[in-house]
């Protein structure tokens, strides 16, 4: 008995507004898809459509000026060729190392700067702008300028002479300090030997698993440009931490160090994750900075997949290999971004 009025009441509730708003309701139903349609069509065509075309090209026979979209047999051969190229193996190593070192420098540097500015020292407004300015530059400008700084003949090495460091070294009979920077083809801390001890076939790997020395100046330049961005993110995060938290910590007698280490930085974790993701995908896609600063580098020490794609498509005209390499780049970025997006969607 009790259910019948409920049902009828629900019907009544549902029926009344439907009647009142019948015209508006149907208008809304049409309007929102209509408004969304252009951007949905554009996104599907220009993003997913072109990803699809790129996947197809990567599986095709197109490897000269004449377009040839026939499927290459065996399927996936381009990827086989791609991963067997020693240059692309080096590129993957470089892009992973670049991302790791760059994130460490940029996020660490940005956090440090933000914490310093948070202390409300004199002129913090001025320094906030100063630290943010490099972010406004284009990567090409940064790359060209830093290539002068890290040129062994004209750059920072002259500074070692100027401050008398090399004179001091010479008086101890030590060789003057003159690093090759972006021209140094050494791969430091090679792990090949250690891996070969456990896994003997590794002795034949042509890829040197280690840190290419020439890559380090490039990560410094990238971090210089983007640590200001990380700083701005962290400053925004610091602004959202309620004052009561700091006061409570101070009342409990927490030192500054403990305040930052155990309270503020853990509270900044969401910001940290966002910053890591944004900068991480920038670094996986990096092209212009490296192209302008060091190019492919000695023995491909600073080569990255972006430069590889550019040369394979626009110079070698091996469209299928270039497309395959861009799909690999897409997958790398997805590995970083998709878990983040999934988490964001869950939070909504």
């Amino acid at each position, binding site marked *: 008995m009790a259910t019948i009025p409920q049902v009828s009441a629900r019907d009544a509730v549902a029926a009344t507004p439907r009647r009142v708003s019948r015209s508006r309701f149907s208008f809304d139903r049409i309007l929102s898809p209509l408004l969304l349609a252009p951007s949905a069509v554009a996104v599907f065509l220009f993003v997913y459509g072109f990803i699809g075309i790129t996947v197809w090209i990567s599986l095709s026979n197109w490897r000269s000026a004449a377009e040839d979209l026939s499927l290459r047999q065996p399927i996936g051969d381009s990827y086989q060729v791609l991963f067997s190229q020693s240059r692309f193996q080096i590129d993957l190593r470089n892009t992973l190392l670049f991302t790791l070192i760059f994130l460490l420098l940029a996020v660490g540097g940005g956090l440090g700067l933000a914490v310093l500015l948070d202390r409300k020292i004199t002129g913090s407004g001025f320094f906030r702008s100063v630290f943010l300015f490099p972010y406004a530059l284009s990567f090409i400008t940064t790359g060209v300028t830093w290539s002068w700084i890290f040129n*062994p003949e004209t750059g920072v090495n002259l500074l070692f002479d100027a401050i008398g460091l090399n004179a001091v070294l010479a008086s101890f009979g030590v060789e003057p300090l003159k690093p090759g920077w972006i021209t140094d083809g050494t791969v430091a801390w090679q792990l090949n030997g250690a891996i070969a001890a456990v896994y003997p076939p590794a002795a034949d790997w*042509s890829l040197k698993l280690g840190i290419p020395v020439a890559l380090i100046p490039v990560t410094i330049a990238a971090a210089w440009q983007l640590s200001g961005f990380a700083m701005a993110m962290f400053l925004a995060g610091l602004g959202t931490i309620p004052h009561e938290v700091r006061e409570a910590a101070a009342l409990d007698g927490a030192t500054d160090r403990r305040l930052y280490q155990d309270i503020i930085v853990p509270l900044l974790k969401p910001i940290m994750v966002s910053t890591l993701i944004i900068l991480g995908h920038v670094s996986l896609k990096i092209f212009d900075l490296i192209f302008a600063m060091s190019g492919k*580098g*000695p023995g491909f020490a600073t080569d990255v997949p972006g430069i590889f794609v550019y040369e394979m498509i626009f*110079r*070698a005209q091996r469209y299928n290999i270039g497309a395959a390499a861009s799909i690999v780049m897409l997958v790398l970025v997805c590995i970083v971004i998709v878990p983040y997006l999934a988490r964001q969607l869950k939070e909504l």
Partner: protein
Amino acid sequence: MTVDLTKKLGGRASRRHLLKGSAAVGAGALVAGRLAGLAAAQDATPAASAATGQLEVFSWWTSPGEAPALQALFDAYSALYPDVEVINAAVAGGAGVNARAVLATRLQGNQPPDSWQVHVGRELIDNYVVPGYCEPITDLYESEGLLEAMPQTLIDQASQDGEQYSVPVGVHRGNGFWYNRQVMEENGITVGETMSIEEFLTAAETLQAAGIVPLSLATKDTFAAAQTFENTLLAVAGPEKYDQLFKGEADWDDADVRTAAETYGKMLAFVNEDHPALTWDQATAMVIEGNAGFNSMGDWAYGEVVARDAVENTGWVSHPGTNGSFVLVVDSFTLPVGAPNPENARNWLRVLGSREAQEAFNPLKGSIPARTDINREIFSPYHQWSIDSFANDALVPSCAHGQASSPAFQQAFYDALLGFVDDQDVDTLVLNLQDAAALDAEMAS
């Protein structure tokens, strides 16, 4: 209403003589009308240009040394065809990388210029002739007497299946070896008319002992690493084997290739340490400024020498061991399929093939004419030397500049040599070159 007006304008658009006035009237009336008018005006452009007569020439000649040379060709053309409006569609960017990307887009969109600049050899054939973008101009070669005026090897480079596809205007010599006279004098080194590999290595040791960089090299833009190797390969293997290697008729696992790689390795012991940070002109500048003894570079380096007023102090020979060979880097112009103004384009190619145009163009560009029947007196001593070499020596195409191989092989060649400069591993180099040749053979099949 709107639809009616559009239809009306569309109908008028098909009658092109009436178009301009009617489109202008329509433009004032309605937005839709204006759009239709615009579309109609665009539609009419080819017809209008045929009436006024245009010639659109595409190139990557924009630098201070190149633009005046291109202008000299335009002047030669305008002197004969004063009523044709010449449109200079040059795209800036070193070695034409940007320009080639723009050109590829235009060709794929069926919007060719009336003529474009291209290196002869495989760059012309693979990129443009095989995909069907170029009209044969064999009849022009015959009517203008170009078959007699140019060396057969050069004509072969512009030909596919017995038809010619482009008119060469200027020839650069890729195997130049430049030195600083004062540096040589101060170190007691005499450089004769030619230089062998042994002579170079001896001189290099003297220079190194004196604290001067013996050989300047720049590998930031890669081509110099590849070019120095191809010249060394030419020295060791000779022009015939060199040709066979790049044509895929000889295996890269060859004693001569290995010797050439080892020789190149010996030369690399004498180069400046900062070569990965330099571009080719900076390496040439090292010789001009006396910071290095020698630089191996094509004769566009002579442009740097002139620009820096160092002609007196700069000497040249062929790259060590390549005396008797001339590495071709040749600029030419094409006739596109579907050129908007085909008659103007054919006249342009007629002008380019003429003695007058080649004599006006080349002293400014720093190259030598593709014709051999020219007045050599108007050229600098270096270029007279190059003209003699062009007339008498074995002509071979350059791989580093895209003439000897497919673009895919060229890129693999670059990559292999950039790796070799770093690790100097002869076996890896030979393997990489064999892989590249296999790729080339597979594509040709």
